[in-house]
């Protein structure tokens, strides 16, 4: 395996949790709901996934526990913003505060515990091809994240249910008047986003590091939110953006290792500054609104 191959693999590894979490949030936002709780749900997913995997000895159970945790937390969020029409920004922030605290409580007993990372899938013949490790030697999460991206692309762009979801996100009052089930679709979207965030958390604690430490999400949930905006709410652009961002992260890690005389803090700040710059660059090009029309607005159906 050559150096470039190794670097490309680390890019994919860094991009995958962003891709999974952001793809979930993209669907939520296309349905017109802004969930700022990704960071919290990811953290709880990481803690629950790791705890369950250690306690049961089963990676599958760990992943399922992380998804379940994401579902429960996003269900709580849905109860607030759909059931009680609360402010979505504040509710999402509450979810993040709650989630970061909960992850600490759940993970407290597992700090310092090590676990084998999920091994990459080896496909005889294909993995051994030149460059094959990048395409065919990844762990199952990577294949899943790609499948998720294309499934979302198909769902939003080609399926009837996707059309319904988008129209609800564009204008919930009109969608309601047409008899579309606004709250039901939004509930489904929020739960989907929660499951994705939980899964992305499991990836961090079961594959990426692989251990649990407090604050291990390190703002990835927020970066996932920024990626959705960066991608103009489109799945393919999101796929591209996630890998671009994964690349930037890896570049920064290599720069730190190479000790170029730049303070390590400046390099660590790079992903966050890059996010801001990316958001600015994206919005300079488009003055017309590309965000879903009803994004962030609470909806109370009249009878």
């Amino acid at each position: 395996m050559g150096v470039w191959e190794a670097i490309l693999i680390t890019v994919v590894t860094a991009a995958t949790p962003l891709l999974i979490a952001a793809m979930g949030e993209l669907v939520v936002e296309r349905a017109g709901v802004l969930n700022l709780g990704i960071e919290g749900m990811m953290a709880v997913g990481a803690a629950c996934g790791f705890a369950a995997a250690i306690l049961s000895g089963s990676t599958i159970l760990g992943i399922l526990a992380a998804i379940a945790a994401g579902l429960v937390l996003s269900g709580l969020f849905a109860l607030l913003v759909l059931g009680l029409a609360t402010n979505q920004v504040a509710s999402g922030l509450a979810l993040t505060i709650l989630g970061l605290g909960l992850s600490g409580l759940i993970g407290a007993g597992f700090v310092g515990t090590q676990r084998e990372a999920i091994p990459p899938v080896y496909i005889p013949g294909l993995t051994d091809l030149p460059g094959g490790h990048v395409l065919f030697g990844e762990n199952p999460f990577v294949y899943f994240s790609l499948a998720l991206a294309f499934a979302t692309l198909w769902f939003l762009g080609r399926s009837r249910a996707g059309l319904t979801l988008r129209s609800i996100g564009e204008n919930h009052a009109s969608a309601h008047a047409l008899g579309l089930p606004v709250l039901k679709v939004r509930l489904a979207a929020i739960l989907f986003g929660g499951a994705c965030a939980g899964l992305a958390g499991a990836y961090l604690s079961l594959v990426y590091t692989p251990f649990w430490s407090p604050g291990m999400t390190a703002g990835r949930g927020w970066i996932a939110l920024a990626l959705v905006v960066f991608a103009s709410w489109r799945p393919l652009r999101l796929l591209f953006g996630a890998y671009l961002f994964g690349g930037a992260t890896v570049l920064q890690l290599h720069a730190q290792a190479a000790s170029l005389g730049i303070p390590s803090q400046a390099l660590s700040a790079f992903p966050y500054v890059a996010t801001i710059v990316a958001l600015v660059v994206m919005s300079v090009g488009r003055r017309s609104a590309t965000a879903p029309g009803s994004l962030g607005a609470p909806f109370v159906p009249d009878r």
Partner: protein
Amino acid sequence: MRLELVPRGDVSPVARVLSPVAAVAAAILIGGIIVAIMGRSPLQALQVYFVEPLTQGWALQELAIKATPLLIIAVGLSFCFRASLWNIGAEGQFIIGALTGSMVPLALHGSGAGPWVLAAGLVAGALGGLLYALIPALLRVAFGVSEILTSLMLVYVAELTLDYLVRGPWRDPKGFNFPQTVTFDWTLPYIAEGDRLHAGILIAPLVALAAWFVMRRTLFGFGIRVAGESPKAARFAGFSADRMVIAAFCISGACAGLAGIVEVFGQIHQLKPGISPGYGFTAITVAFLGRLHPAGMVFGALVVALTVIGGENAQIVMQLPLDLTRVFQGVLLMCVLAADALVSYRVRVVGGGR
């Protein structure tokens, strides 16, 4: 099954005042259940969290000390939140305020300069926070970039900047390589025995009072409130939306920066990593708990400060983790939002349908 929300016509002012109180009660109940799930006594936790700190003199002083930064930041945030602007980067503005404010005593260290250093430092701190908050505001006005994400990203940048400075150029050469600056020549005077209660706590009520005046008695405050409740009406009335964004962010940034430098001058007396235990985020809960009203936020700051002290107390007495306090603060914010909804809407549970 689903919830049906029926708007209540008139909401009594009493209900508006009581809803945060009910939210605190509900949050305590949920917190008790979580403590019980952890296999500990909820009643003992209640005692340790909320009763003991209120019955001891030292703890009352601590309450004022912890409530001070929370109140100053929350008052600033209320200007943004009222105008439906989401500055969630107060933590970063707090840190930058602490940095820029500290430049004054650091530059004059050992020069024998008088106590005006403190005044200059406080102004520099507020100014630093203001300028840092101006970044997301300008990006929003000029390019339409969401202020939520940019203000939050800048928190990480601020933390790393502080880390770099105290480990690098600003490190105390005689500090045994600890990541910290020299101890400042001048610090805020103590106003009570025990050398804990510093004069900075007097600033918080003044800030709240000034905010009340601006919000209720000036055209600018009126503009902010209109902009939040009906952007269209604000436009027709001739309030410039862009100017509102800039002004609201400047006020909240200046407040957060001031809180940062007050914390450093009053309590820490030097710069080091981790000068804020997340005050900038906790203040968001304070702002909503106080229903974005200055008097309400005084109540909110005291309640949330109580959970901070109670949390430290519970860690010592009951070995309960500090994360429990964060969980409680998250639950509290959710309860506040839910209570607000219950005040505005009658909720009915309906079977079936959509």
